[in-house]
């Protein structure tokens, strides 16, 4: 399976309905001789949480900056919330790009007030309240009146997050939001992303921490060297990666013959059999149970995102190791996303990985 | 797209700024020559002699390219460059002249009975009674009239087209030395106001240069009644007021024995005078220019001395204390000295 195949299979198709929250059409950015982003087509469906993955220098930030209109693309066009002129959509967009930008001599609250003064959707009277709410939401209420100069890296990052959340947003773009955050901060960010998703906002979050993306995202886009290697719903991507059902059973022979009878492709594997093709999961489980096979457990066989990523990028060779670098303050998150346990007979075919 | 539009507007504004700067910086060339009824030189000179301009106020620009060496203690207006003189006159002998400099101003006021000279640099005012023959300094009306009268015998006088000076149409009166005159000067042009028949501009052109060696003319001129307060002077607080010595005004009395002799006439007139004798460095009156170190050494049958030459005039200061000067080449000076 080549990377191209995956990309074709996984291309996000928003289909009909509302305009995508963000769309890139042939986006390309060249700095001098360096191609930072090389012709990327991407659609982010409304309501999705898109994780943008890629090693440092893979073009994540440049792509985000072009989507937001901060950088002029060399070629191609970007669209935000259905607007080709991004500034018309930006009032509804909150963003934390390339680290938090604030003035060192102002307090956190004053910094946010200055930012809020420029927010079109805030009435002047609503500014103090919105600032206080945003500060509380990121857990900075206690340090609001200290100068930004004295903030720790994590506090700066939280303030930046607060700036993105001053107004209820239809789209929130977070570029490496957990940079410099301690485990508690990382958890807070994940909670906030979850809340945004629940309230219907679209979230684009870039990261080089695979586990973090796997834990919070419904969709992923994988970039390398300015190109999009894969993009799509996270669950779909993981399924298409290897796929199949893993049935834990002591009755291997009976199970194989039963499945052979309905034309399913199965083979012994693991603590039982692995079904790689055939009817849908509920049907298979029903068949096996009816045939008297003792089914202890049924797994949808899926790789971890890290495996998928390695698989995607190994095809071209020489991929920098991803997920191991950066801060390691994401304890035991990756293991949670280790495939979905399907309870006895009731199998949700496509639930995604969002918790 | 709006971005492109604004980028275009931005560059347009920047270009407009450059063009505007150019318009300010590059002086407007000779404007269209105004159409005026023809007039003969004699008529023009005669009308200038008879005219009385009435009250006026304006600014005169002196453009000096004489190439005078820098003389310590001399007014800034003598050095090369342009300087402004502001003039107000009520037309009946009362007037005010301001000589602004970068740091201060000299002001001359005549209220009809008393003339004041105020210097802002040292805050002194010199007062003296006005006598009937007092000439207003640097008044182009008077200086041009005098020049015409003096030069008519040895010059060709003609009217050469028209010009616009200080926004007013004017005839260009041209005085050209006769070919027999041995002078450094090529021609003298005087722009005469077509209506008021007042000289508005005096231009002196020397041989060998297309640009004027000296030009004095109005850049701004309005005829009409002037604020009477301009023609009075009350010494401001903190001013030292002195009375000028009788006779030569504020300048120190000229020492005895320096009555000048005039050699030749017309354009090649040379004035020979005797400089004050004695130790010059000590006797030199305060404020007077020190000429002893200027120029280049020259010598001849007449003796030896130092030659000071400018675009329109030359002077020789001999070691035995004589001074010869005129709008002539060096040779004419030495001939005059050899007499």
């Amino acid at each position, binding site marked *: 399976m080549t990377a191209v195949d995956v990309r074709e299979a996984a291309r996000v198709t928003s289909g009909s309905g509302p305009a995508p929250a963000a769309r890139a059409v042939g986006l390309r950015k060249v700095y001098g001789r360096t191609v930072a982003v090389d012709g990327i087509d991407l659609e982010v469906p409304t309501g999705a949480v898109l994780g943008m993955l890629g090693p440092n220098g893979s073009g994540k930030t440049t792509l985000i900056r072009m989507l937001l209109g901060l950088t002029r693309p060399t070629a191609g066009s970007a669209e935000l919330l259905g607007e080709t002129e991004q500034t018309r959509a930006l009032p509804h967009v909150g963003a934390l790009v390339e680290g938090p930008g604030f003035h060192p001599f102002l307090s956190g609250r004053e910094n946010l007030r200055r930012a809020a003064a420029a927010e079109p959707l805030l009435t002047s009277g609503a500014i103090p309240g919105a600032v206080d709410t945003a500060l509380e939401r990121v857990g900075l209420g206690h340090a609001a009146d200290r100068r930004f100069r004295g903030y720790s890296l994590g506090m700066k990052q939280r303030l930046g997050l607060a700036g993105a959340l001053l107004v209820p947003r239809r789209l929130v773009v977070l570029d490496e939001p957990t940079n410099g955050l301690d485990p508690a901060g990382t958890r807070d960010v994940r909670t906030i992303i979850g809340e945004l998703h629940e309230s219907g906002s679209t979230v684009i979050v870039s990261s080089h921490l695979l586990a973090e993306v796997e834990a919070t995202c419904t969709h992923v886009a994988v970039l390398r060297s300015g190109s999009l290697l894969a993009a799509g719903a996270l669950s779909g991507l993981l399924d298409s990666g290897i796929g199949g059902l893993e049935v834990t059973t002591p009755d291997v022979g009976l199970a194989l013959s039963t499945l052979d009878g309905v034309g399913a492709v199965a083979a012994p594997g693991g603590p039982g059999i692995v079904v790689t093709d055939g009817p849908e999961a509920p049907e298979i489980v029903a068949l096996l149970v009816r045939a008297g096979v003792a089914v202890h457990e049924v797994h949808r066989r899926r790789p971890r995102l890290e495996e998928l990523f390695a698989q995607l990028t190994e095809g071209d060779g020489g991929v920098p190791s991803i997920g191991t670098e950066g801060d390691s303050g994401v304890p035991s998150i990756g293991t949670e996303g280790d495939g979905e346990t399907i309870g006895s007979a009731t199998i949700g075919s496509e639930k995604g990985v969002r918790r | 797209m709006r971005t492109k539009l604004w980028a275009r507007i931005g560059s347009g504004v920047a270009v407009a700024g*450059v063009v505007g700067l150019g318009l300010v910086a590059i002086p407007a060339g000779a404007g269209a020559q105004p159409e005026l009824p023809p007039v003969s030189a004699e008529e023009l000179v005669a009308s200038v002699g008879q005219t009385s301009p009435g009250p006026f106020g304006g600014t005169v620009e002196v453009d000096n390219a004489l190439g005078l060496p820098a003389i310590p203690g001399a007014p800034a207006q003598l050095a090369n460059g342009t300087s402004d003189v502001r003039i107000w006159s009520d037309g009946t002998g009362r007037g005010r002249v301001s000589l602004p400099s970068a740091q201060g101003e000299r002001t001359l006021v005549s209220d009809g009975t008393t003339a004041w000279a105020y210097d802002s640099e040292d805050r002194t005012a010199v007062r003296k009674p006005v006598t009937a023959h007092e000439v207003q300094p640097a008044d182009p009306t008077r200086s041009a009239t005098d020049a015409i009268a003096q030069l008519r015998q040895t010059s060709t006088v003609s009217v050469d087209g028209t010009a616009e000076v200080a926004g007013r149409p004017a005839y260009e009166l041209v005085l050209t030395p006769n070919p027999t005159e041995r002078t450094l000067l090529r021609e003298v042009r005087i722009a005469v106001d077509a209506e008021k028949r007042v000289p508005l501009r005096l231009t002196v052109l020397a041989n060998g240069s297309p640009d004027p060696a000296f030009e004095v003319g109005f850049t701004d001129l309005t005829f009409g009644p002037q604020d009477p307060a301009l023609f009075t002077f009350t010494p401001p607080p903190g001013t030292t007021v002195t009375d000028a010595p009788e006779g030569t005004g504020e300048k120190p009395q000229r020492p005895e024995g320096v009555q000048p002799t005039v050699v030749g006439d017309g354009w090649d007139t040379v004035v020979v005078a005797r400089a004050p004798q004695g130790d010059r460095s000590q006797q030199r009156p305060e404020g007077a220019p020190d000429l002893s170190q200027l120029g280049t050494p020259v010598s001849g049958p007449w003796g030896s001395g130092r030659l000071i030459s400018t675009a329109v005039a030359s002077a020789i200061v001999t070691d035995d204390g004589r001074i010869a000067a005129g709008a002539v080449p060096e040779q004419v000076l030495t001939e005059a000295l050899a007499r």
Partner: protein
Amino acid sequence: MTAVAETAVGPERTAAPLGRLLAAEVRWVFRRPRTLITLGLFALIPVLVAVGVVVADRNGPGLIGAVAGNGLVLPIAALTLALALLLPLATAMAAADALAGEAAHGTLRGLLLAPVSRVRLVGVKAFGVLVVAAAAVLVIAVVGVLAGMVVVGSADGQMVTLSGTTLGFGEGVARVGLVAVWVLGQLAAVGAVALAVSSLTEHPLVVLASVLGGLIAFGVLSAIPALDWLQPWLLTSGWTAATDALRDPVALDAMGSSTVRALCYAAIGLGITVWRMQRRDA
């Protein structure tokens, strides 16, 4: 989330009110420590000149010399003195912080994402720079008048002009105001050009160095006699015109022409800034 949603219901607009942006900019400018320090130092200039004149106690040449016993000349002399270097540098500093400094802090990005349109951003920033320049000029003028009256003193609060006439206090202050407005016009030109440099770089010091270098270059160029023809192009060549406010009647020619020149420089600077900001990455 819901709490925010309730308090933040604003009208559907795509730009914050201009007045609010300008007010936020002014508040930001005056919260900046270096702005306040600069203004404090500017307040010292007329005081130092006043003390110097009183201690020296004699009429010297030039504008400073004209201050002695003539207190209302002090603000004009101090403004002329400061215009030579300090006021342009303070203006350049404000312009440096306005775009290059904001870019360096990453706050320019925030403003553009709010969004503040790029043209509007240039307008807001130019306004901020002008406010700093005006504050600096005002400080020198007001402290100058006070120090002039208190430290130097003058006869009956009058102003003695260079032409030897005497003006009443009101007219004297009006002359100071005239010079202040004229100086502000010159600083607007400096600020606009500095803003253009600021839009081209992310390093505030580059802006300061450019303006300082420009002032020095203009000074050198105007000192070379062979380059006389260049004079009318140089912004600095009219910077002694404040002396004309001390003449009677007041001579407006030099101040007028230098103001026109300053406006041309301001147009060039602002034009470049607008053009550059349209394509600048933030």
